[in-house]
């Protein structure tokens, strides 16, 4: 633990304890699922009846999971990129510029977070069909739908982050000859790196986990992994999905590891950057 100014030993200890307790809370049901993924029984008997890797074999070889994974990665990456690309300028406008209709815009922005996902899915489905745009059942349709669901996250996180960046450094960049966009890219963006990473992460995970809206937007060719999992579960109740979930967790662990290596120093703080500590 890296202490920060004004930390008391007792407080740091307490924080550690809270973190420990919360990690236990977070991990407990997950660990059971992970353990169950090696359960040789096909009907989830507890304690596990024996050890097997069959479910992993199944999870890895079923073509719909392979295709779903690829689709999910494509949808996740694309929609994250889209939403960051349109959300960042939007957040910037909200923080730095006075314009008419801003409060209205902020109100509308919260919307996609709250409308029940399934209602969002239904009305988007109606729109896609009614507009004759061919978006229904296409990857673009999924990306657009996911971008819509994620925009509020991304904008809220970025707004909070941009608020912490002193506008004066932007002035300095402008004064040194940077155009408005250049100043933003060279000076503001690097400073909101933690916000961008976090927003991107939230966006990607939302997309990777989305079922309720997506199910209205997909055709089989573009089924995402969670949709395939949902459909599988409707019919089979063996531990294959536990194995698949475990694989996803392991994969994300690997990604964090790579991220941390990339960030050179070994902590979340370094991965995210930031100037406080």
């Amino acid at each position, binding site marked *: 633990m890296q202490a920060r100014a004004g930390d008391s030993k007792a407080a740091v200890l307490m924080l550690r304890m809270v973190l420990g307790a919360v990690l236990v809370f977070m991990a407990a049901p997950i660990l059971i699922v992970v353990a169950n993924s090696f359960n040789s*029984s*096909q*009907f*989830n*008997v*507890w304690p596990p009846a024996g050890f097997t890797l069959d479910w992993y074999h199944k999870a890895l070889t079923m073509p719909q999971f392979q295709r779903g994974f690829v689709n999910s990665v494509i949808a996740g990456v694309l929609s994250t990129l889209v939403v960051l690309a349109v959300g960042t300028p939007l957040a910037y406008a909200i923080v730095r510029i006075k314009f008419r209709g801003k409060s209205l815009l902020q109100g509308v922005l919260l919307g996609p977070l709250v409308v029940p996902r399934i209602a969002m899915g*239904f009305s988007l*489905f*109606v729109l896609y*069909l*009614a507009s004759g745009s061919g978006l229904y059942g296409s990857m673009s349709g999924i990306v657009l739908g996911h971008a819509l669901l994620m925009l509020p996250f991304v904008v809220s996180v970025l707004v909070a982050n941009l608020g912490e960046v002193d506008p004066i450094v932007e002035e300095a960049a402008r004064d040194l000859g940077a155009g408005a966009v250049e100043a933003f890219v060279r000076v503001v963006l690097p400073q909101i790196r933690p916000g961008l990473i976090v927003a991107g992460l939230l966006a990607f995970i939302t997309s990777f986990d989305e079922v309720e809206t997506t*199910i*209205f937007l997909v*055709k*089989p060719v573009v089924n995402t992994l969670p949709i395939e999992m949902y*459909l*599988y*579960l*409707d*019919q*089979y*109740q*063996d531990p294959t999905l536990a194995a698949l979930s475990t694989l996803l967790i392991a994969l994300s662990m690997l990604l964090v590891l790579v991220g941390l290596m990339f960030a050179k120093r070994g902590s979340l703080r370094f991965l995210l950057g930031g100037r406080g500590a």
Partner: protein
Amino acid sequence: ATRISQFIWTGAQEPVPRKLAEAYMKAHPDVTIELTAGTNAAMYPKIKASLDISANDPLVNFGFFNLDASAKGRTANVFAPLDKTAVPNVENILDAYRQPDDIGAIFCMDVCGLVYNTDKIKEPPKSWNDLFDPKYKGKVALFDYYWAGNGLVALAKLNGGSEDNIEPGMKIYADAAAAGQFHSLYTSNAQLQQLLVSGEVWIAPYFRGVALPWAAGGAPIGYSVPTEGQVTFPEGFQLVRGGSAEQTRISQEIINLSLAPEAVLDYCKTASVLPLMKNVTLPADLAKDPAVQPEALKSAINLDYAKMAANHTAWSDQWNKRVKVNL
């Protein structure tokens, strides 16, 4: 080239239609069949909405539906009648299940009985009333949602009510809920399996077709046929309105092929359902199953899904207010 979109159910229901579609495409290279696997619950609203928007461009041309969705679709004018000459095999459907105007070919069914944990309940339950037996207090689970429809009506019928008067059934559920009889309501197969296997829940009404594979896999789960009769759950093909003439023709051709005895038998075996065809006989091992004995099937409770579809909203509203609120 013609594109046909066919809706099928996922899982065990998938292989046979896929096999047939492939065979058809091989024989007719100019036809592409696009199979969409899914559930009625997710697919039916999409089909209905898409027809509302563009009546001549249905999301799927034909597909597999349960009688509940069939009845809804019939009232909502989603499905088209089958042409007897194009689908001669409809004639082989048991008369009781032949649809008026041949809107749909309901050719098989699942049945619903009592599913229980064999470790906790040694003596197989015998009656629907066991669900309300105080000795199972807190150990009974019900399916949320559908059960609001068919379980309700079935119980009403057993207690002197009918599709037009569900009050007798509703009252029993409401009282049992208030008395703490029910452990919980489940919403998916997986959940019920988990509840039963863990011993949290001992007994629940559910589909034979779902429970048998669990038991076959070694789970401590049994299926028993209530003496009052199982509740039937017929399923089959529906032709969706709005397709082109060519699409309609091909769709009916495929439906007809799917209704051939070998195809039906194949389907019933893989999906653990019962055929409703005059010209199909079950293989010996299956025929021994008490659930499929002629007497059992004769006493089975058949529900009027058309009436149920009409009342669905009102009932589910009552169910929410009288049963769920009191759980």
